[in-house]
């Protein structure tokens, strides 16, 4: 069985905005464009756009993992941001044009 990153648009996200509105900025998640608001972090945007089972996989067990604490303690939200691996997505604010790559175990491509 190969573990594949599903596109962000095939989703049942965990969260939604209380007051929905068009996002002022756009970030790139594995080639898909996601709308976001400037005060959001990478983790909060991903939690409203993607299915939690598609967030990342553990480098040790290969099992799916997703953000747990949103306060910088659990390190379950790690993603690659603008080429820098293992960034805490809950602490990084989105910027226009930001490139986010989900971290799946080596060798698995979308």
């Amino acid at each position: 069985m190969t573990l594949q990153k599903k596109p962000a648009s095939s989703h049942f996200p965990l969260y939604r905005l209380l007051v929905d509105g068009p996002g002022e900025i756009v970030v790139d998640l594995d080639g898909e464009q996601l709308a976001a608001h400037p005060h959001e972090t990478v983790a909060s945007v991903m939690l409203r756009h993607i299915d939690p089972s598609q967030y990342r996989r553990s480098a040790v067990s290969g099992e799916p993992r997703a953000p747990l604490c949103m306060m910088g303690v659990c390190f379950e939200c790690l993603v690659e941001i603008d080429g820098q691996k293992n960034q805490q997505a809950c602490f990084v604010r989105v910027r226009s044009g930001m490139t986010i790559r989900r971290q799946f175990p080596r060798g698995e491509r979308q």
Partner: protein
Amino acid sequence: MSAPDLLIIGGGSTGLSASIVARELGLSVELLDERPALGGNYFAGAGNPSAGKTKLGEGYAQGADLLRKANGPGMRNGAFAWQIEPDGKTYFIDPAGKVGSISPRRLLIATGAQERPVPIAGALLPGVMYAGAAQLMLKTFGSIPAGRAVLVGSGPLLLLLAKQLLSQGAAPAAMIETTPRAGLLMTATSLPAALKVPALLSEGLGFRSALKKSAMAWHRQASGVFISGRDKAQSVTFTDRHGQHHTIMADLILLHDGVIPNDHVARQLKCKETWNPGQHCFNTTVDQWGETSRKGIFAAGDCTGIWGVEAARMSGEIAALEIARQLGFINADERDRRAAEPLRQRARQVAFRPFVETHFPPTLARAAFAANDTVICRCEMVTAGEIRLAVRQGASGPDQLKSFTRCGMGPCQGRSCAMAVAEIIASETGRSIGEIGRHDIRAPLKPLPLGQIATARDAAEEIVA
């Protein structure tokens, strides 16, 4: 490199109130906060333009005022303090990935609290989060659960979150409370002090009556909780007080079992600490002003022990006053005059805690009772059974256990497993948790790429030396 009178690590209620008082007395202050915005957990998002529109209560509304007063030069967001020397010299990494250092005359650690980690079966599945995470999603980003949310566990924050979600029109599907039935004797011993803080008491009772009127299913005195699902959480199962098993379908499961100090900075400095059996966590040892066992290094607020947000604000002010006295900005009389009121108010808050502690003891988080296949170290996938086996094979403390099992060696550096490890070793060996302690914390306080560390020459020299 800069050399302010005071460096504060942490921009929550403690750090903000300390910075306001210290600046007022003429001290130069710098502050490092790892988050993208100031406010910590309690006042997260309080500086957002939309914050005034959310129905999060009076206490939260004060946050905007606190943030406005604290605003000034030297407040750095997205700046992570990753190494602290015994003299207070602090290395940090900024949002651009550059390393810098600050050599303050005094250091105040104000790193707040974290969720008490909950190692139960199924807790690793996506779709399981802590209640505090959902609260941050609401406060900071104006986001609410999209599907069926089920709250599980014990503690004032769980009740508060349920009420906050209700008032936003995002009622949870169910709340499964694991809080045991309050013993009459426990209440009798802690109630008198609690009655001195009637606002807190009535706030708590108010939550319960608002929740009772809602359509949310509310199960109490639950036990035997576990979560099921294949590649994400699908249901939560528990046993009710009559011994009946129930399974509830859920998209988002929000766990909570109280909070514990976020104390990696004080631990890296090897500040003295003691086990607090009432709070079921370690407390950094501080004097009434907040000075730790290391002279010139202060710690205040929930990173020293769980005393609540009001006490945290008072402790920030009290520490700033003593720091100002030590540096000659005010004399002892002036310090005592200014500290009298915050000391009195803090004492009232502290006196309230035993009431909370006896009502909400740890339940889900009791790792001593975890089944052998329950994962304790999320990063390295170490189970309770592997820890028990390692202890029987001679790993007598958390540091030996690390080399036996890699438990605590992953990216979170033991933030999720240290308490559970201490509890399991204690139950296996019959020694006390306080005696066992937790593994040593070394710099860097979180994994950093070597290339980033090397960007600052003086920092790099320190590390090589």
